[in-house]
């Protein structure tokens, strides 16, 4: 590394600075879209996982185990390179006309994260005493309505801290989208590096952005834990 000259101006102003900014934008956009979809899908899987019907439960368990025990990168490649054989033709056409790289990354991140979120939601639901369900059923709620109005609202409150941690994981995992050419933060840092040979500066900038995101999210969890879940300091 002898002879390496630091030049921070490369990344603090001008064209390369704006590359990194656009990378941050895509990272945030990719993470936000995926976390919303992953939450909805995870909720669905968690409910199916607790269904009274055996076969429905088995499908949900199979989904959870398969997507949790397979590398995210392989899933990204599968959806990006291989999805054309299993998706319907009209969907393929639509995806190809739009941002297919971004869409593949969203699909992979959503499915991967939903499997983890479903387990978090399930442990949230299981932490609600089962008498609540029995009381709801005996006062005339159907299973689905009891879930909807009695169990889930309480479970979601408990599940919020692990959900926020999943969002943090998702944000970090979104860096893998660079492998299929989504121009998010890590991708842009690498671009800056290959155009300027200022790798240290570019990766320092990207690392700092990720660190700021993690610190903000960690502080959010701590505050929520203290103010909402445990306001009077009991454990």
């Amino acid at each position, binding site marked *: *590394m002898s002879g390496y000259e630091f030049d921070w101006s490369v990344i603090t102003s001008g064209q390369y600075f704006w590359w990194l900014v656009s990378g941050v934008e895509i990272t945030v956009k990719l993470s936000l879209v995926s976390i919303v979809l992953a939450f909805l899908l995870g909720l669905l899987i968690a409910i199916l996982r607790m269904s009274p019907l055996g076969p429905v439960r088995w499908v949900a368990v199979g989904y959870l185990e398969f997507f949790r025990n397979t*590398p995210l990168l392989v899933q990204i490649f599968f959806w990006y390179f291989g999805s054309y054989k299993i998706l319907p033709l009209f969907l393929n056409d639509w995806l190809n006309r739009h941002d297919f790289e971004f869409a593949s990354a969203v699909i992979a991140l959503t499915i991967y994260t939903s499997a983890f979120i479903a387990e978090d939601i399930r442990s949230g639901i299981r932490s609600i005493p089962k008498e609540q369900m029995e009381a709801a059923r005996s006062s005339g709620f159907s299973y689905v309505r009891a879930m909807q109005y009695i169990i889930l609202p309480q479970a979601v409150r408990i599940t919020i801290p692990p959900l926020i941690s999943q969002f943090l994981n998702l944000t970090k995992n979104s860096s893998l989208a660079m492998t299929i050419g989504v121009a998010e933060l*890590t991708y842009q840092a690498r671009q800056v590096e290959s155009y300027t040979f200022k790798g240290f500066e570019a990766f320092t900038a*990207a690392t700092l952005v990720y660190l700021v995101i993690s610190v903000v999210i960690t502080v959010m969890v701590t505050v929520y834990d203290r103010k909402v879940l445990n306001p009077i300091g009991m454990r």
Partner: protein
Amino acid sequence: MDTGFHFQVIWDNMAHFMIGRYPSGPVGGLLLTLYLAVVSCILSFFGGMILGLLCVSRNRLIRYATLAFVNAVRGIPLLMVIFWMYFLLPWLLGRPAPESWTVIAALTLFTSAYMSQIVQAGIESIPRGQMEAALSTGLGHNQAMLYIILPQALRNMIPSFVNQFVSLIKDTSLAFIVGVSELTHVATQVNNRTMVYPTEIFAFIAVLYFILCFALTELSRWLERRLAWRKSI
């Protein structure tokens, strides 16, 4: 467009998927994936142990510095750690480093940070009375930690260690980015060569990873049940 599935491509390239170009070339494929995972796992066991012990150190400066470092590593993507190692390792060694070393160094650093949290939680799960009893029999703090606390804590940590190993196996797929020819990289090579079977190829390696990781996840659950059972008697 032909949309049928053709799994012949998997059989034709099976040796490549399993062992790469070995014996005519370097080891690759699933075997290299396992090698990277096992070596990084052993190294990060010690790395995690050291960081974990520093995290519960009585010296406040050491404790906070280690916690800051661990949380910083946990706060950035593994891909970033790999790129950092790609730059830093040749500089640290003073000569070019093979890509597989880059990956092992990055995986070790990254996993050590996560392992240190397991070690920390394991140590904290041992009742405080144990340390007090050990100190009162005349052992020093370090001796008590080494001979009394750690052996008990380690047993509680085994299931979490196995889970961490599963994450490690999945994480080795990122070695793709620096061109190490582990399973995922071999799959992209076969895909580039054959062009028209991406669905079959990536589904196949997904299943391979799944079999490996699922078996280990089940092992960890079994260990956890056994541990709970042993505690209950």
